[in-house]
């Protein structure tokens, strides 16, 4: 029973990180109909910025805030410089451009920050919390991770639903032409969408890097699972991203805990594939997809 609790809690923590990446991919997808393969790389780069700030100022929170700000800037910059020129072109071109961006960012990280492992500090203590004498398998920092992602998601939901900026973003995602006719600067809205996605990615990077150590390829695996979570939940649904992330995190934790040890091999990726196949066979557009519409 204790084990179950430990696996559940650690699954939720990783799941929230996948959810953050998934949410950033959903944001970009809803706005620009584009898969951003560079999301993990952008998160890694902003985390490097954070660690440089932390070492210079000896303040974790300064690094945290600057990482998020850098995420906003990097997201907007990527959209303007690299993605905007691909509008109107075949859809795969933009995907290749983001792949090129990923490779470029990883190369630049290696050039500027070196290729060694960097130790990234957690915001709070990592010694496990206990109930009575039994360790729960989570620490105060883990709770912070889950809470940070949750709070950011809720804030974004509030922004989208209750502010006029959010309304503009939803309108532009709904129908760009009509939004333009209503006077909305759709181009600017798209840039803001990418900026917010960059912020989410930066948050994910800062939260998960203590567990992965920081090096140019550190976010690659996290991105793959974040993307899988987004697909499971449905790329048009922010709620789906969060649910998909949690589902994936929990499932992988249970698989590693209950099955992995007995077989002695790492089944994580096979389990993720299995879940993906099952979900997509039942709901080809993800769990939270609406009714399928066909254009005739």
């Amino acid at each position, binding site marked *: 029973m204790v*084990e179950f609790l430990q696996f559940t809690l650690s699954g939720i923590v990783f799941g929230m990180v996948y959810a953050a990446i998934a949410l950033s991919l959903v944001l970009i997808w809803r706005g620009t109909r584009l898969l951003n393969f560079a999301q993990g790389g952008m998160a890694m780069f902003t985390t490097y910025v954070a660690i440089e700030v932390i070492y210079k100022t000896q303040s974790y929170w300064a690094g945290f805030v600057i990482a998020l700000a850098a995420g906003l800037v990097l997201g907007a910059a990527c959209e303007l410089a690299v993605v905007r020129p691909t509008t109107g072109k075949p859809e795969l071109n933009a995907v290749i451009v983001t792949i090129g961006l990923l490779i470029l960012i990883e190369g630049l990280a290696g050039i500027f920050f070196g290729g060694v492992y960097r*130790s990234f*500090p957690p915001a709070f203590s*990592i010694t496990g919390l206990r109930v009575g004498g039994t360790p729960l398998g989570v620490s105060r920092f883990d709770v912070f991770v889950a809470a940070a992602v949750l709070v950011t998601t809720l804030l974004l939901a509030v922004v989208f639903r209750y502010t006029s900026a959010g309304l503009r973003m939803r309108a532009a995602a709904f129908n760009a032409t009509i939004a333009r006719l209503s006077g909305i600067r759709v181009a600017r809205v798209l840039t803001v969408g990418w900026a917010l996605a960059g912020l989410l990615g930066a948050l994910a990077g800062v939260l998960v890097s203590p567990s992965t*150590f920081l090096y140019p390829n550190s976010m690659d695996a996290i991105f793959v699972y974040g993307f899988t979570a987004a697909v499971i939940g449905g790329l048009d649904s922010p709620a789906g991203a969060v649910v998909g992330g949690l589902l994936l995190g929990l499932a992988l934790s249970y698989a590693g805990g209950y099955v992995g040890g007995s077989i002695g091999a790492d089944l994580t990726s096979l389990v993720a594939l299995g879940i993906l196949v099952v979900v997509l066979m039942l709901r080809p557009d993800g769990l939270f997809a609406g009714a399928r519409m066909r254009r005739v």
Partner: protein
Amino acid sequence: MKRSQRLRWQVAAIATVAALGVAACSSSSSSTTTSTTSSTAPLTASAPGITPTTITIGSHQPLTGPAAPGYSEIAPASNAYFQYVNANGGIYGRKIIYKYLNDAYDPTTTASVVRQLVLQDNVYAIFNGLGTPTHLAVVSFLNSEKVPDVFVASGCDCWDNPTTYPETFGFQLDYIREGKILGQYVAQNFKGKKIAYFYQDDEFGMDGVKGLNYEIPASQVVAQESYVTTNVNIAPQVAALRASGAQVVVAFSIPAFTALLKLYSLKLGFNPQLVVSDVGEDPITLSGLLEAFAKQSGATVNGNALINGIISDGYLPALSTSDPWYNLFVKIHNQYDAKEPLDGNFFYGMAAAYTFVEAMFKAGRNPTRADLVSAINGGLPQGPFVAPLAYSPTDHDGATGAYIGIIQNGVLVQKGPVEITDTTATGAVTPYTGSEQTPSANGIPSS
């Protein structure tokens, strides 16, 4: 952009690429051997890659990609030693040119870059090729081309195969020997305690476990957990280790996963005695990985506190200023390689380069490729190694032994004698009674 504008860009782009292509083709790197011989010293172009003034060797290394952190420091360190030798007379006056190419730990790329080095760049030998799956992709090619394949940077036992791979020589202490040495220490010092293994799910971890099992009674082993480098969430494995009640955990893990093992153990309130393979225990690397956590977990200032008490082994001297080899290599590092960290990888790279220079001096004034192979088959002095090197016509293993040490204040402190052994199930682990060598005055092996 407008169609006509874009068309202009396209033409310009194609023209630029064409120009670059012509430039590249015309500056292809082929080594032309000069046949002029000096009137005083008869240095000749005695083999591919050797000219009267240079020796060119090649290697494949993971300079980028997930396997790069840490390992990418080894080749620059070797190169630094070679530059030191070049500045101090070279090898019989020839300078060593070390071309190491990036394979990003992908065997397909390894196959390609090694063929480039051998077929196009005509290197004399392949030195210190890094990685087991990567090097396996090129070992038959190198042997069929009769290119010396010396001091492979991998502890796999597979390089010791003189009948099938006569050109290939191992270098570091192989994982089976290491498992036996660590295993004997654990069996003798933790009698009756519960032992668990934590190992990487490849031949590094599995060979290590094989060696451990030769020495540790099976009744003591309560759990065996493996991990893969692509999955950093080892919480389930650590939970299983804790649930097994293990009092000693023997880890055949790379530094990142040794650090993660420590972190997750902290989280679960699990505090076993850690015994870690030399591959994963470099104190500098480990404390670097853990330094951001030291403050949070209530420990004192730096990551050293978290790694105190870890038991490990060493086949090269510890990184301490009381060791003459360390001082020599640090001096060379500060002159030629100063930007890289002073950790176990740098020491390893320097030791490999030193061993190669030993072999080249022994190979003679105008060596052929076969001369290098016979030089190593004739045995090499152990240099910085703490135990003798096994090279002979029937044995292509390098290091044969190591000492057990405990990490104290960020340094591996030797406890007890150097132990030597072999890779068989029944071969005993015995203390080495010979002495270690000290470097010569200028740090270059004598010719």
